[in-house]
């Protein structure tokens, strides 16, 4: 019970500190806006959207996951870097167990990424004028939320590693990408299915295999991180 209390306290503190400056929040939102505007400008010419209407769901799925991955790389890296820079890591070590700290940070990252996905996805679908009739909304919500949870778990772990290194910027994406490939593949495939590729009625069934992959990935990522995090934290 104490563990849950500690994790919750870290989560609340994370958002409270974020709300004071709103650095991560605004940088992530701005990044997403810039990416979306760039996509909208580059996929348009005088005749309208240059992508064939059959290909739009696939293009939307691919671009959505590219945006999610890189926004995560810009926004979620702060989690442990800040503690080292401000010198607050020691106080946090005294206050809570390693696994509770990881869980609180992970929950904060996951909620940030989920909010971002909820903001980005409808805009991207609107920009690409993807047919909404063949879309399965529930499948889309399940795939995206599970994907965000998995991405947040991996980035929380890698940002704890990167916080110790002198080069931080590009390293986070380089460390996380190879580990995230299975999740990204399943996420793109599931999003395509949810947007109606090879599935004109928008059924749920074509995406269940992807959901299985995403669920097992998230479970493995969270468990491994919890087991390994103590080695990084209590040093």
């Amino acid at each position, binding site marked *: 019970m104490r563990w849950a209390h500690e994790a919750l306290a870290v989560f609340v503190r994370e958002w409270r500190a974020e709300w004071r400056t709103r650095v991560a929040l605004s940088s992530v939102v701005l990044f997403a806006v810039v990416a979306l505007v760039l996509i909208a400008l580059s996929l348009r010419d005088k005749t309208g959207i240059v992508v064939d209407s059959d290909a739009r769901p696939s293009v939307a799925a691919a671009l959505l996951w590219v945006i999610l991955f890189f926004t995560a790389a810009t926004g979620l890296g702060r989690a442990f870097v800040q503690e080292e820079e401000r010198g607050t890591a020691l106080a946090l070590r005294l206050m809570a167990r390693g696994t509770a700290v990881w869980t609180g940070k992970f929950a904060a990252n996951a909620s940030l990424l989920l909010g971002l996905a909820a903001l980005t996805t409808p805009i991207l679908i609107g920009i690409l004028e993807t047919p909404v009739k063949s879309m399965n909304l529930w499948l889309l919500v399940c795939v995206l939320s599970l994907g965000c949870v998995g991405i947040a778990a*991996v980035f929380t*772990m*890698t940002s704890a*590693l*990167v916080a*110790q*290194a*002198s*080069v931080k910027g590009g*390293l986070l994406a*380089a*460390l996380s*990408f*190879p*580990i995230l*490939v*299975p999740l990204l*593949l*399943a996420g793109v*495939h599931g999003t395509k299915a949810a947007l109606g590729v090879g599935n004109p009625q928008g059924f749920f069934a074509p995406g269940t*295999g992807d959901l299985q*992959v995403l669920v*097992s*990935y998230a479970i*493995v*990522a969270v468990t*491994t*991180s919890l087991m*390994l995090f103590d*080695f*990084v934290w209590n*040093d």
Partner: protein
Amino acid sequence: MATFAKYLLGVWVAACVAGTFLWLREVPTFPDPQLARIVALHLPNAMVVMVASIMAGAFGWRYLTRGRRPLDDARSKTAAVLAVLFCLLTTVTGSVFAKVQWGAYWNWDPKQICIFILLLIYAAYFVLRGGIEDPDRRGTIAAVYVLFAAVMTPLLGYVVPKYLPSLHPANTRFDAQYHLVIWSMTAGLLGLYSWLFNLAVRQERAQLALDELAFEGDF
């Protein structure tokens, strides 16, 4: 004794290469039956990559759990360096094979993707190591990353073939001749790997001792 082992290893690997070129039969089921022999150069390298990756992870685990001895970190790093070396050899032999049999050096085949991602992981691993000054922190962080990657990457083997078509022949049945050459070559390359590993670890051990002496000399 050591010199004898080195000569034996040289003769052994040379015999394997000669066997690959002169003794192995062509395989009519491949588009280019003559060049199917490349398998005997490709597969043993991939097996050494697997052994080296497992050793990098195992020594990382030993570093974390058995009192963080610098030598275990050095062993883990050496295994990773050699894994990259044999990874590159596997990629090159595999690309040549893919070119002559399937028409392109790179096909985004699941196994090609897996080996490419393994290379990416090791590249990130060495950049991460390069970015940390303190040797103790470096050892810990590197070991945690190697273990994290070691747990997450086997998922690739299950996930990637689910989404992408494969050109690698499934359930190939090698005949006895191919088995003999491939396994002898694997044994030879593993011998070469352990020799390189041993040399590099001895050098690391000497370096560690030297650093300690220099550290004591400061006071």
